[in-house]
């Protein structure tokens, strides 16, 4: 049974309205969210280029004062804009389209969706002010007792809570769909997006408590001090599932949309559903693997979270098979023969497909270095070295970002009603991102592994910098250069599509892959309660005892008034 066919009852009730009319609010919301996301990304990438140059010994920050005061201010803005703003805004925008089209139902409580969006925008402005005024140069992890301006904390909270509210609008829409479609299985794309939003809801409780109960009151002078370890623990409670919040929308596209773009079908939809449920229960109880080198947390707890982290690698391994098999159905349907001949037949001239395919390839390597990071015994060799930015530029910087760019190549035409401006430039963008990221991330990985060069550090000015590091720093600079070209192409294509793209002859539609396997979906893959209880139970098991101890032992350590380290 195809995904489209099950929602026909609703479509039939909508009369003669065109999709553009039925979904005009959704289209406008998506367009705004994605537009803000891309604006943030453009500035975030610009600062990334500045950092790459600094590492190679070319410090341009002195030329852009007073707009940006220091490398570390630039690094903070790079992290917040790219990792938090670009991702969160793009994901809510993408889901606004994905969920409503997958259910073929407009948002049932528009005021809730508008409220969520409004909160996110206000939050962004409140976060931006202290960032640009150099009042919150605390990096995107804002570890206490680095103290940012209160507006930074409140702004971040509003962005997160705004994304929750956007999620509530999705849940109500799902509820309305369910009422009309009793006994029908939830379309895969809607299910995957909804699970991601529920996971996000559970996962962000940690950072919400950290900010609302500790950092915000402290920054307003209502609390005398902070507890560094408790702050880190609450941050990483959210910090690891945060990476799945970035990744799962990409998985959604790889499972639910890319097979269609490749001319094939989703190979095993039931397993794909299982994968998302597994992410719901396993994403959060793993945060201590970011704290292997922290004092004050018993080794046994670190080991347990390390074990769970291997567990959460399992759904990603399943994904690797299903996606490859789905693409193979596409390559063969397009006339591909033999063991590998189908690969050549994939639509390599389609920039949306190609970008996302390269995102998958880069993610395979990001996954391998991720498993290394998560390994209790090997983490010591790479923790807080440049290996880490090498790793996450393959994950959030490629698996997520390059996939979102690929999605933008159909989503922006769909929302704007215009044809993609230059598919050739968009293709070149995908290729340059692939090669730029290979050089950049290999240089960073190796520099961290072999020389222990620290991450988040102004390496160009570090007295312990060794001449032996230079070849690897140059390799990553080469990567940065190619990535600069790639990013320029991306923004060129998007801006020109919106401003000068030809009117699309037919409305662009969201790609929805059909399922190859038409065997029935077991009921337990479409029921929420057990999975949500399981997720909460695992979080309580993995975090409850340790959080109880940390809260009991909490020391709110004051710093001298006005103590500011940047």
């Amino acid at each position, binding site marked *: 049974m195809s995904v489209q066919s099950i929602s026909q009852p609703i479509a039939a009730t909508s009369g003669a309205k065109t999709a553009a009319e039925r979904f005009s609010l959704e289209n406008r919301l998506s367009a705004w969210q994605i537009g803000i996301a891309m604006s943030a990304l453009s500035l975030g990438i610009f600062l990334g280029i500045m950092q790459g140059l600094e590492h190679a010994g070319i410090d341009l920050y002195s030329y852009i004062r007073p707009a940006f005061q220091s490398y570390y201010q630039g690094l903070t803005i790079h992290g917040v804009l790219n990792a938090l703003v670009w991702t969160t805004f793009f994901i809510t925008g993408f889901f606004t389209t994905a969920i409503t089209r997958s259910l073929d139902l407009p948002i049932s409580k528009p005021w809730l969706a508008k409220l969520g969006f409004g909160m996110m925008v206000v939050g962004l402005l409140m976060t931006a002010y202290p960032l640009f005024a150099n009042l919150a140069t605390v990096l995107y992890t804002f570890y206490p*007792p680095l103290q940012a301006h209160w507006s930074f904390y409140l702004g971040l909270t509003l962005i997160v809570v705004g994304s929750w509210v956007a999620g509530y609008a999705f849940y109500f829409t799902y509820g309305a769909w369910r009422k009309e479609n009793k006994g029908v299985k939830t379309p895969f794309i809607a299910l995957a997006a909804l699970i991601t939003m529920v996971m996000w809801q559970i996962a962000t409780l940690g950072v919400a408590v950290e900010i609302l109960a500790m950092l915000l009151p402290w920054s307003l002078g209502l609390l005398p001090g902070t507890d560094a370890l408790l702050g880190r623990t609450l941050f990483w409670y959210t910090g690891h599932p945060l990476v799945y919040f970035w990744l799962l929308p990409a998985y959604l596209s790889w499972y639910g949309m890319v097979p269609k773009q490749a001319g094939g079908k989703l190979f095993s939809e039931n397993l794909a559903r299982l994968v998302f449920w597994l992410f719901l229960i396993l994403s959060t109880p793993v945060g201590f693997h970011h704290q292997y*080198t*922290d*004092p004050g947390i018993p080794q046994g707890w670190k080991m347990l979270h390390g074990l769970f982290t*291997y567990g959460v690698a399992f759904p990603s391994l399943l994904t690797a098979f299903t996606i490859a098999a789905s693409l193979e159905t596409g390559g063969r349907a397009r006339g591909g023969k033999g063991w590998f001949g189908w690969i050549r037949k994939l639509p390599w001239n389609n920039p949306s497909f190609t970008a996302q395919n390269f995102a998958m390839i880069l993610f395979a390597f990001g996954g391998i270095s991720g498993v290394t990071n998560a390994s209790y015994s090997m983490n010591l060799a790479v*923790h807080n070295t440049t290996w880490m930015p090498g790793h996450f530029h393959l994950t959030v910087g490629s698996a997520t970002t390059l996939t979102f760019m690929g999605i933008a190549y159909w989503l922006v035409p769909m929302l704007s009603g215009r044809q993609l401006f230059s598919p050739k430039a968009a293709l070149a963008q995908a290729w340059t991102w692939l090669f730029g990221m290979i050089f950049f991330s290999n240089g960073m990985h190796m520099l961290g592994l072999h020389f222990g060069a*620290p991450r988040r550090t102004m390496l160009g000015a570090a007295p312990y910098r060794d001449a032996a590091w230079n070849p690897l720093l140059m390799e990553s600079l080469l990567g940065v250069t190619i990535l600069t070209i790639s990013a320029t192409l991306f923004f060129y294509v998007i801006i020109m599509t919106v401003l000068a793209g030809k009117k699309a002859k037919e409305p662009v539609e969201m790609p929805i892959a059909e399922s190859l396997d038409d065997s029935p979906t077991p009921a337990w893959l479409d029921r929420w309660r057990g999975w949500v209880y399981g997720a909460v139970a695992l979080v309580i098991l993995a975090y409850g005892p340790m959080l109880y101890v940390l809260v009991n032992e909490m*020391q709110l350590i004051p710093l001298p008034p006005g103590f500011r380290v940047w």
Partner: protein
Amino acid sequence: MHVDKYEQVWIRISIFVLVVFTLAVLTATVSAGIQVPGVEGRVDPNLITTPGASPWAAPSVRELAPGKYEAYVLAQIWRFDPGEIRIPAGSEITFYVTSKDVQHGLKIMDTNINMMILPGQVSKLKTTFNNPGTYDVVCHEYCGIGHHTMYGQIIVEATADTTTTE
């Protein structure tokens, strides 16, 4: 639930690989004595530098027995105290490190010493330096505008029986 037969094989391989990884990590941890910091109790960063109040009031290296040392290191913006540690090759040294102000990191190049340094907490790890040479001790957590200048050195001096090693 129907699952394709090749996919079933892949699922088994995936589980097998993850079990092997788990066993490998456990084996390496036990047999190679890999250690990560654990619980060493809390300290008050605003009191530790009061003379006589704690070992970090006068951070230093002490010889406990021939070839056995302990180092009390205080991290603060933007230096380690002591900034230079000299020990003979072949020494085992245990580090007890805490921070007086913000979070710091401590990594000793070419060793497995890698830890976060938090105000209020004590990070403890030990290692043995067999090869003479100079080892940079680098702060690897952002701690302010001078973060990249925060480093120290461990100078492992050759002794009569280690001069022949590299």
